[in-house]
């Protein structure tokens, strides 16, 4: 960040962005981004009832079960993080 950036509106914007978990930054790895995408997706499925019922019909499960499954999947949605090469 440049010195001039520190005081303008953009710095506030970045501060705001940093408050949201799903936002990213230049050093984000593919894995981390994918985890965010997965979690956002599951949250969205659960949040939209028609989507949830659609998946329930497709999988022949109850809606509650489906919601539960999605929530469980939000924990480690992409499996364990890969080993970091640089560390």
């Amino acid at each position, binding site marked *: 960040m*440049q010195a*001039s*950036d520190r005081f*303008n*509106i*953009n710095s506030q*914007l*970045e501060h*705001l*962005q940093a408050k*949201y978990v*799903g*936002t*990213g*930054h*230049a050093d*984000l790895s*593919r*894995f981390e*981004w*994918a985890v965010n*995408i*997965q979690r*956002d*997706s599951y949250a*969205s*499925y659960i*949040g939209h009832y028609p989507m949830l019922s*659609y*998946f329930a*019909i*497709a*999988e022949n499960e109850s809606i509650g079960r489906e919601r539960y499954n999605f929530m469980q999947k939000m924990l480690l*949605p*992409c*499996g*364990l993080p*890969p080993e970091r090469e640089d560390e």
Partner: protein
Amino acid sequence: MADLDPEIAKTQEERRKMEADLASLTSINMDRDLYGGNDRDSYVTSIAPNDEEDTNLDTTGSLVAQRLASYTAPRSLLNDVARPHNEDDDVGFKPRQTIAEREGEYRNRRLNRVLSPDRVDAFAMGDKTPDASVRTYTDHMRETALQREKEETMRLIAKKKKEEEEAAKHQKDSAPPPPVPVSSSKRRHRWDLPEEDGGAAKKAKAASSDWDLPDAAPGIGRWDAPTPGRVSDATPSAGRRNRWDETPTPGRVTDSDATPGGVTPGETPSGVTWDGTPRGLATPTPKRQRSRWDETPATMGSATPMGGVTPGAAYTPGVTPIGGIDMATPTPGQLIFRGAMTPEQLNMQRWEKDIEERNRPLSDEELDAMFPKDGYKVLDPPASYVPIRTPARKLQQTPTPMATPGYVIPEENRGQQYDVPPEVPGGLPFMKPEDYQYFGALLNEENEEELSPDEQKERKIMKLLLKVKNGTPAQRKTALRQLTDKARELGAGPLFNKILPLLMQPTLEDQERHLLVKVIDRILYKLDELVRPYVHKILVVIEPLLIDEDYYARVEGREIISNLSKAAGLATMIAAMRPDIDNIDEYVRNTTARAFSVVASALGIPALLPFLKAVCQSKKSWQARHTGIKIVQQIAILIGCAVLPHLRSLVEIIEHGLSDENQKVRTITALSLAALAEAAAPYGIESFDSVLKPLWKGIRSHRGKVLAAFLKAIGFIIPLMDAIYASYYTKEVMVILIREFQSPDEEMKKIVLKVVKQCVSTEGVEPEYIRSDILPEFFRHFWVRKMALERRNYKQLVETTVEIANKVGVADIVGRVVEDLKDESEPYRRMVMETIDKVVTNLGASDIDARLEELLIDGILYAFQEQTSDDANVMLNGFGAVVNALGQRVKPYLPQICGTIKWRLNNKSAKVRQQAADLISRIAVVMKQCGEEQLMGHLGVVLYEYLGEEYPEVLGSILGALKAIVNVIGMTKMTPPIKDLLPRLTPILKNRHEKVQENCIDLVGRIADRGAEFVPAREWMRICFELLEMLKAHKKGIRRATVNTFGYIAKAIGPQDVLATLLNNLKVQERQNRVCTTVAIAIVAETCSPFTVLPALMNEYRVPELNVQNGVLKSLSFLFEYIGEMGKDYIYAVTPLLEDALMDRDLVHRQTAASAVKHMALGVAGLGCEDALVHLLNFIWPNIFETSPHVINAVMEAIEGMRVALGAAVILNYCLQGLFHPARKVREVYWKIYNSLYIGAQDTLVAAYPVLEDEQNNVYSRPELTMFV
């Protein structure tokens, strides 16, 4: 903390009284006072308790006295008049004021507190028994107890002495007086100080009378042996300093070369001290009467080599005798002396030096230079002339500086610069003389390497602190950072030992204090648990901030104490503050209570509850119980409704205080209950169940202050109750309230009024009951002239009456007061008017019958006409409110009202004319309702004739009145006709007064809007040119009205001409003018449809001039912002222009174009213009790497706009190309865009995320999205 405790208020009141007394004695009445005629005893009591007070008075007091001499009114009132006046007087030329000067006597008591030595941190020691040398909590408690005991004994002795004295006097009355009175301190003084008989004696008496004040903190005399450990070094001034003891310096405590104590050594035989009054040293310390005659020698004191010649300085108590050294330029060698001077002296000296510089006698050379060579001759003094040598006579001489004959003016060097301080080494900032005391060591050019590590550390701290305190912002910043970073390394002890004395400096200014407090705040954070030994010291310095008059200081104080308690922990905080809880000084207890409330809010109330409980039940001293209960009160005030969860326990903790044996404890308990109920409102009545009975019983048994407090508590509890209970309890309390209606006590009056208001406003109280039981007494006692004289009473009475009116209706209240509109006292009439205004505004006038209506109008007319001054517009508002409420019923009175108005429009006084015009604008609507159009037309003509008014305020009001008339009767019926009126307004547009401009432009705009056709187009064009000037107006409202008027005019005469004017205006240099013009263009486009404006505007873009092109782009931006959806028809037309602008080399082009695109995109979202928008996005996108903040901002906003118009998926696709770009700079920008996209449309993105390939252990795919039924 905005509400000062009654105690504080009382103290301040007393002080004010004292000052007034002193003021009337200093100058004007001097002769009378000097040569008898006045009872001398009267001015003894008036001596302000400390020196600073006197200094203030000397400069301003005489002024006050002169003014007051011609008034006759109660003193308290005069003070109210005189005080604000002084403040107004020196606005603008206010010298920088130190905090101590600004504060009152009570607040200055903070300077009397002593920084207690470090205490051992019990946590750090573990299980070890504390070493005998360290100071523990036990030591401290023991000392406090000792001090209290001593205090008690002193009090007893004093009492006994007094009794003896009484007895002696009794005897004296019967028997002839003994030649030498034995125990009268009065006489003693006469022996010691022959010159000061009267004054000293009286002062002594005043001082001893202070004993009786329960809250005064007499402290211990200086002579008692310093309690070991209580003093940090060998300073003899151990005890708490008496508040009448002058020049409180922190230096006393830390600096051993400061004058130790109130008496100049050797001046007063110490034996006298011992067998004098028990007040000890304070007694032989006569307060120097600071009036004119002894001020002169004091001023001269610094000029004259003193010795015993000038008595003025010789008897100056507590002040280091000012000697010849002070006259000379400060040389480093003398700095040592300077360090020993108190800061006030330095201040005083600086001031004197300035005066002397100007009033210096002229030397022979100067006189030679001034007068012509010939025609003048130097005469010898007459042979009979003998210079006055006796000091006593000299005292009464007219004060001419340095006029003492026989005294040789010291040879001085004119080129000498007095105020230039010695060079400060090593790039350190300027050092004020007061700072030498603290930072003097830095001036000694010693070799740093030779110092011990500790000394080096100390030096470093001093340097950094000096930079923080006096340095430039940059210096300050780095120093602050260093202090913060190295806080642990430098150590808590050395740091606080340097910082805290600085904060006790009496000449500290707000800014300096703020900076030092900031330092403490920062290092607290770093030091954390290391602060524990210094908690009490810090509190001593910070607690006064909690009662500072400056809001931000209070907030800072709270912040520090809250951080401190988080760093040190509850146990340490309690241990540090516990001894202060039953301190003898009320000031200490007050600040401690406030500090405790902050601790409670920082660490949670539950944590503090057990401690509070114990304190509130303390058997040992009532002070502890009082403070404990006060803490509860402060908690309630500080954290408001957050007390609710703990309400019951807090009430339980303090409830027994209602039946305490000490009256003060009972009072504070009731006040705390009031605060709790106020904080909890409207919930939590069940928590107060247990106190209802004692409260209601208490009001029957108590009187005076306690009763007032109880009533206050009841007043706050009743609104929490259910209707039935409220009604029952109100009836119970009302008997007492009605009895107290006649109380002469002001405080009681206010509380009674407030409680009546609170009771009446609760649901369960029936109007009938109020009418029969409360109203008669209420009006008899409160609606009297006296109540209107004091502002707070006045306000409270109006509020309460309005509240009653809400219950019993308009007719009852207005009927009772309406006669008083004709009262002979103007303030009283004003109060009546304000009440009627509020009541009628709230409730309307339908209850008012014909008879009352007649009385009301009659009274209002009378009051309106008889008013002499009405700065708050009370009469005007009241008149307007009543007329508007009565509506059509005013018709019969309108001719009379208009007659009055016309009469007053012609008045000599501008204020009256203005008010008459204002009244027209208020009642215009009603006049229309009454069908009095002819009358309004007539008024219109009258107003028109007065358009030549020279006072801008009045002219503005006249224009406003014309506007109101035009608004209600319409353009066609307006007299004078619009075609005559408008040309008359055009020149007025040139007027630069804001009020005139605003009203005029409103009127012109109104005419342009509704009746443009009555005026020829040429006239409108002329107005357009005038309006361009008005676009520069400072007030936003005027600029807005101007721009709107442009729109109306453009609509009326077609946009072409107006637009031509505006486009020409784009070429001017002034930025603000251009900005306003662009706005005006956009407005014209909105009112006359964009197609009338766009061609000309786009054509203007071809002018190869930066300002013009940018103006066009800006107009486009505003234009698309205003026209919103209408923009969809014009996007394709302006796209080529925007393409060009977005590719321009000039940054501002791209920036403005980007913001135009943003508005465009937001306007046409969902209207099927995606193709054009995507095209524009392709031009926007390359700008994302811009670094200039305005440009990048505009670009980002344009992209956000595109997100709305095109959908998040499109932007995400643009983003994906750069999120994992190999160059970090690129990635950063792309992630920034991604993040704002994500925040804006997280959910939408789910469907648009790219498909990621799985890796060996990690599943990235989202199979759910491929499901299909």
